[in-house]
């Protein structure tokens, strides 16, 4: 495996990403967007700036108008976003949708969609979850019936990240009764029968219900092979999972550092609370868990970039570890902040709310432990 140390260009990218996030207000921006109740849930001007930097094409090959960088770089951007709770739908629209289109899309689909995606003029949202699907990619009730030369789609997708304001959706639908017969469709948002309803989640991000009522699409809307959607979907999910792990890493690091600073500044009983061994030991254990998490994220990103045999194992290892550590750190952060941490005015609660959304994105720790065991054959 490649070295688990950042190269100089990677360090520079990480710095640029951190600067971009803090320049626009860091965590205050997330708070403001929440308070305004903005359905878009993010800042178009930040999205445009990310496009200018070329980041909306970061996972794409140069022939597709991208930067030809890998996940090793992508996680540096998501880490910076996690630290500052930047709400732009980078993982869903760029890593997931852009990556899936580049992987499985036809030449026509790529030519039509990728350039405007990279320029930030258009945005796709992957619509995966249904009310009953939990983490199973194949737990899909949405149906696609052959209709003339094309298809007719019906169903309801929920918690479509970035769904509000999206120009199109990547939809998984069942084309036959069989479990494996999942087909991916690229459905324009303006197609007849598509209804998008904003959802409010605990993390105040852009999230939508997408209802499909006999939505007619042409044969050209199928992404990849009809009935062969599960494999490219699985690959896209693995890449997006690692990008999410980068965001988790940034979030846990920031919440932890803020907590350590609090331990050094808050006095009770006439001494700084950071002198108490009960708190020191818990802080030291969190530090170790974060260090382990960082190693797993870097390893998983490189394993996917290199196409290693154990890439899926590394992805599940990273997601399980980051999920457990993130919940530990944000819960402990709140506890160590005491009563002030429970107030809406304090930022720790914002970290905690986002942490839960990240924990459940693409499978929680228990799900990924099961997957790890299955991949290892025990």
């Amino acid at each position, binding site marked *: 495996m490649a070295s688990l140390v950042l190269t100089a260009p990677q360090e520079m990218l990480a710095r640029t990403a951190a600067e971009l996030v803090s320049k626009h207000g860091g965590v205050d921006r997330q708070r403001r967007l929440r308070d305004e109740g903005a359905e878009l849930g993010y800042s178009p001007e930040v999205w445009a700036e990310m496009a200018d930097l070329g980041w909306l094409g970061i996972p794409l090959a140069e022939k597709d108008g991208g930067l030809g960088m890998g996940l090793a770089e992508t996680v540096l951007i998501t880490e910076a976003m996690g630290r500052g709770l930047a709400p732009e739908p980078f993982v869903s629209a760029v890593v997931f949708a852009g990556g899936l289109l580049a992987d499985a899309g036809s030449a026509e689909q790529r030519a039509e969609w990728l350039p405007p995606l990279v320029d930030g003029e258009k945005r796709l949202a992957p619509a995966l979850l249904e009310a009953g699907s939990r983490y199973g990619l194949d737990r899909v009730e949405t149906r696609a019936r052959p209709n003339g030369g094309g298809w007719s789609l019906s169903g309801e997708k929920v918690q479509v990240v970035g769904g509000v304001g999206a120009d199109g959706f990547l939809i998984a639908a069942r084309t036959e009764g069989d479990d494996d017969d999942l087909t991916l469709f690229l459905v324009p948002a303006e197609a007849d029968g598509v209804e998008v309803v904003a959802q409010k989640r605990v993390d105040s991000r852009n999230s939508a219900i997408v209802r499909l009522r006999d939505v007619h699409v042409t044969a050209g809307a199928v992404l990849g092979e009809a009935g062969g959607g599960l494999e490219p979907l699985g690959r896209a999910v693995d890449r997006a999972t690692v990008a999410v792990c980068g965001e988790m890493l940034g979030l846990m690091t920031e919440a932890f550092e803020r907590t350590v600073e609090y331990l*050094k500044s808050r006095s009770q009983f006439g001494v700084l609370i950071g002198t108490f*061994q009960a708190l*020191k*030991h818990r802080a030291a254990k969190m530090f170790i868990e974060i260090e382990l998490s960082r190693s797993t994220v870097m390893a998983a990103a490189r394993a996917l970039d290199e196409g290693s045999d154990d890439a899926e194992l590394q992805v599940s290892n990273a997601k399980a570890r980051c999920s457990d550590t993130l919940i530990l750190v944000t819960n402990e952060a709140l506890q160590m902040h005491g009563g002030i941490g429970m107030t809406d005015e304090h930022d720790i609660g914002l970290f905690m709310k986002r942490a839960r959304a990240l924990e459940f994105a693409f499978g929680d720790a228990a799900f990924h432990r099961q997957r790890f065991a299955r991949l290892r054959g025990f």
Partner: protein
Amino acid sequence: MSDLSAFREEARTWVEANAPEFLRGRAADPNAWAAGGRRAPFIYPESRDWLLAAADRGFSVPTWPEEYGGAGLSRDEALVLHEEIARLALPMPLTGFGYSMIGPTLLDHGTEAQRAEHLPRIARGEIRWCQGYSEPNAGSDLASLATSAVRDGDFYVINGQKIWTSGADQADWIFMLVRTNPDVKKQRGITFILVDMESPGVEVRPIRLISGASPFCETFFHNVRAPVHQVIGEVNSGWTVAKALLGHERTSIGGMGRGGARASLPDLARDYVGVDETGRIDDPAIRERVTQCEMDAMSYGLTIKRHGDGLEAGHKPGPESSMFKYYGTELNMRREELMLSIRGPQALGWEGEGFEPAELHQTRTWLRSRANSIEGGTSEIQLNIIAKRVLGLPD
């Protein structure tokens, strides 16, 4: 990269040509591992052949400079060599405190004369070392140690008692901490000194542990005379040397968490617990614990790799050794507990009939593992170090 594959070829050829047939496949047999020494018997004569062949090539201490008996290998090359040795399930040619602790410390802090005197003898396995740090009243609070050394001409005269001196009954030399100034802040009056165990006045008594016989001893010093030139570093600056050495010790103890040549947990669970019709471990709770343990070991191994890659890239080593000591030992202990749970009642054997040799061994390694979070600085001390040195939390 091409350099490394060339070296792998060279290492493989050398191992194939020099490793005794008898030792191949015996990595898991503790009797096959040699720490050398004047008095220490080689349980298998082949271990001696293997050590000497390696020493001739510098491979007993591969990363040390050639002038001191090493091969001057880079960390990556040494890793390749270890992989090639492990590929044939061979023991490493040389183990012990000389190789893992006092050698690296002399390379960092010894004078040219001290290095020239001791390092080549360690490399050839001629001298076995033990460590004199802990005392009955100086455990976690090591700096409060009381064994005294008083200057008398060109000698120090040493009086006191050390405890947990692993392998003292077989060691030729001891590296130890002594108090040379009782009148200053406790860390400032400590000196690091080397003592020949054959010096008059040294007495060793073995300690029996809950796991049975152990390598641990108590070592007593009655007016033991050690030449002044055997002090490492400055007089009264031994605490600095000791901390550096503890770093090597923590890394070495913590290294056990990675699993290495141990039995595979999933295999053990399949054997003892059984499998369901789909081939999964037939007890969901055990399966979950095996999975967690395997994932923790993987994450820990990646963190060791990341740390090593950082050193290779020129990052300065920090207080990470405390993290590795803490996590590696806790992980190893959890693993031992889990192996006990997996074997169930068959893990209760002490000796004699009714138990497989591996089961009897298991009982002892489990009991022995309980010391992992105590020796080399307790887990609580490691967490204190991280809180203070890494996180900067106040005293």
